[in-house]
């Protein structure tokens, strides 16, 4: 494909600018949308990432990694190619990557969500000729209710658990989802504790001046024997079903994820409650955003690619599937839902 961006066996590549976008393995120069493991490869010589994501990327890549930090909206020239980063609203520091060369504009979204929340800059619509979009929840069964409603449900669940003297254990991905949960719940209901994996990322968020309610690392708090039955405990999904939960005594478990919209997925999780809260764009907004970018061509990746491409072609839009590095239909398979980072 003789285009500004091409797909190689290392991922998306810009030959003119000589850089990769979210490469699948180590390359000399990577422009990275966000710090989730399926977008961030280790060992690249140089990473161009958003300034707002600095602490999160550092937490993931360590101090040795060579980070070039670019504030949202500013442009850098890479061998004549103009590159700028724009908020994706997915997690702290997540960016859409705008690439311009000789008047042709591409936008690569990474993962994104259109409803604003307080833990990251809200999604910004960027007009372009070619739009490379994710499609994790690219089916019309996925249409998110306003997050306020979900947080009301979570708050109510926590209060009922308090009354029944049960600890409230809420599972969400350690990077991004957990902080969004913390920022969204009503912290006046009770004390909030966190799993180590969550607390570590909380520190990066706080360093980045994201406002989170007071939280305490469970193992540290254990010494003073807090009343777990009145508390909210936020932990990554990997803690589910482990002996780590035993310390809390009688408890109710819940999982917050877009997948929880489907009954089968909820039941398979074997948690007491499933709250529908996603950091990805839903069906309606996916179509809206594609339309509003004004793109003539759409590349669809990460998710229900075939469905979204067919829908777009049916509606007169030039659309193509872009494979991800993971093979097969991962979308709704159990493996994907078990993954700690991708949602």
């Amino acid at each position, binding site marked *: 494909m003789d285009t500004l961006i091409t797909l190689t066996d290392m991922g998306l590549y810009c030959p003119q600018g000589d850089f990769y976008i979210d490469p699948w393995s180590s390359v000399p120069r990577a422009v990275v949308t966000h710090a989730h493991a399926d977008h961030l490869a280790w060992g690249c010589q140089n990473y161009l990432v958003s300034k707002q994501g600095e602490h999160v990327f550092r937490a993931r890549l360590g101090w040795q990694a060579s980070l070039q930090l670019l504030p949202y909206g500013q442009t850098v020239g890479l061998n004549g190619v103009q590159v700028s980063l724009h908020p994706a609203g997915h997690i702290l520091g997540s960016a859409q990557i705008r690439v311009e060369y000789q008047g042709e504009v591409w936008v690569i979204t990474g993962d994104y969500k259109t409803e604003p929340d307080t833990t990251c800059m809200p999604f910004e619509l960027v007009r372009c000729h070619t739009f490379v979009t994710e499609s994790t929840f690219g089916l019309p069964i996925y249409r998110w209710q306003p997050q306020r409603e979900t947080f009301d449900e979570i708050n109510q669940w926590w209060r009922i658990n308090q009354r029944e003297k049960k600890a409230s254990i809420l599972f969400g991905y350690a990077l991004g989802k957990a902080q969004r949960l913390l920022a969204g719940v009503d912290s006046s209901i009770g004390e909030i504790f966190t799993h180590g994996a969550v607390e570590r990322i909380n520190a990066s968020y706080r360093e980045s001046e994201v406002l989170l309610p007071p939280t305490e690392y469970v193992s540290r708090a254990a010494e003073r024997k807090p009343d777990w039955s009145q508390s909210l405990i936020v932990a990554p999904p990997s803690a589910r079903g482990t002996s780590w939960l035993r310390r809390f005594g009688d408890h109710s478990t819940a999982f917050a994820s877009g997948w929880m919209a489907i*009954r*089968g997925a909820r039941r398979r999780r074997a948690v007491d409650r499933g709250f529908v809260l996603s950091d990805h764009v839903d069906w309606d907004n996916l179509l809206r955003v594609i339309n509003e970018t004004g793109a003539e061509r759409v590349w669809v990746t990460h998710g229900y690619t075939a469905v979204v491409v067919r829908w777009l072609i049916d509606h007169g839009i030039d659309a193509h599937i872009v494979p991800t590095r993971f093979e097969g239909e991962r979308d709704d398979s159990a493996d994907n839902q*078990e993954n700690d980072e991708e949602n």
Partner: protein
Amino acid sequence: MWKHLSEKRRKTYAFDPKVEPMRRFAELYAELDNTTKTNAKVDALARYFAEANAADSAWALYFLSGRRVKQLINARKLHTWALEATGIDEWLFGECYDAVGDIAETISLLLPRATRQSDLSLTGWVETRLMPIRTLDESAQRLIMLGAWEELDGTERFVWNKLITGGFRVGVSQLLITRALAQASGVDKETVAHRLMGAWQPTADYWAQLIALETSSSDVSRPYPFFLAYPTERAALDALGEAGDWQAEWKWDGIRAQLIRREGQSYLWSRGEELITERFPEIIEMSAALADGTVIDGEILPWKDGLVMPFAQLQRRIGRKTLSKKILSDVPVIFLSYDVLEWGGHDIREQPLSERRVILTHIMAVTNNPVLGLSPLVEGASWDELAAQRERGRERNVEGLMLKRKTSPYRVGRQRGDWWKWKVNPLTIDAVLIYAQRGSGKRASLYTDYTFGVWNETGELVSFAKAYSGLTDDEIRQVDSYIRRNTLEKFGPVRTVKAELVFELAFEGIQRSTRHKSGIAVRFPRILRWRTDKVIQDADTLETIRALLPPE
């Protein structure tokens, strides 16, 4: 154990019956569906029963206990109207269905949010919309469905779709419902269980009678709850004490049933609480000789020339609406008696088994009819002697041994302690996964329904059994992932999978069949283990399986 728990857990409920909107029932459904904890389920049920009025409670009970209204709207109409209401293309609807695995849920997710909120009660929805829909013409049916979809939201809509398609199911056992009713009403559990048996109508009157502290029941057809056994094995038997304290019988493979004779009428109930009186005229004819006030627990068996026939023969009779002379003479049945629960109009379930057996023997002698058999005792002075008897079970066409403590009362439901089933070891073979389909419910969107093949004479793998249970969640995920990566072809929901994975299957019996390419069918097939140590060439052949067939 139960008594202790029930007292500890019993709570006082202020019955404050009021008309609750259908929403409240949907909330109950969600609560029951969300949790796997039995106490949480019981509490949710008890709360509902305490809050809802009698009519709503009766309908809720009706649906929760698995009774259902026959399918009112078929899938085709539902599909057509759903496309109309959601405005999406058929192919996209298909993609969504594939991801969700359930039509009722797919529709409820695809519909726009409700435009108005209904305060109609569960009873209102069922009696003024759901039940009458059957008699309406298609255009009136359509209006009711589209109207319901506009007024109901989220879970309510899902519940409605499930009720209307006759597919409403929720994960609560009869035992949990019984516990919740006892907890909410203060009526003891055994009485509740008995009042729940048989054919009752979901009315406010029935509800009042169900939770009444005093008994005033007069339903002559009502069966007793069946006592069911837990499985056991040789290693566990020594803990049961002396073999001599136990009554051993064959575990027969027929239809467990209760035969009731009261006020000059006979009723035959299956274990699934289906009234099957009409299906077995020879049993009903025989039962006229029983004294009024007699209830016998036993097994309906196909029986010819003093021998039990394979269960498949009985299946030929079960499916039929009308019973021809030919089928009646081809597959005659007997009622093999296990136990007597009522005698002379008195409930004798609390008497020890040894005494009930004496009464049962007496009934046999008085009736003296070959259609009423007595389950023979299996002799064995020790567990080892009984084990030797059990080994010969398969030759006798029985499933194993039943062990019943001679002093035991006839209890309610499945309980440990007094009755055990000790099945013959299953037959096992190694087979190759060749087709896969998505599961449903908890397993929707995962490939969990497998078809297995074995080698035929010309070196092809031919399908011979479908099975799904027996794998761990982890293994299911691995197999699911294998299937997705190794699909050769798709036929509708079925995928042809590259032959590579070998599983050990267990089954209880084997029959000739025209349904499977292999010409055989197995009873209760299930996956015993995933044989990752084997390659497909190690799988069994049709020939070795045919050798297990009973002589023709």
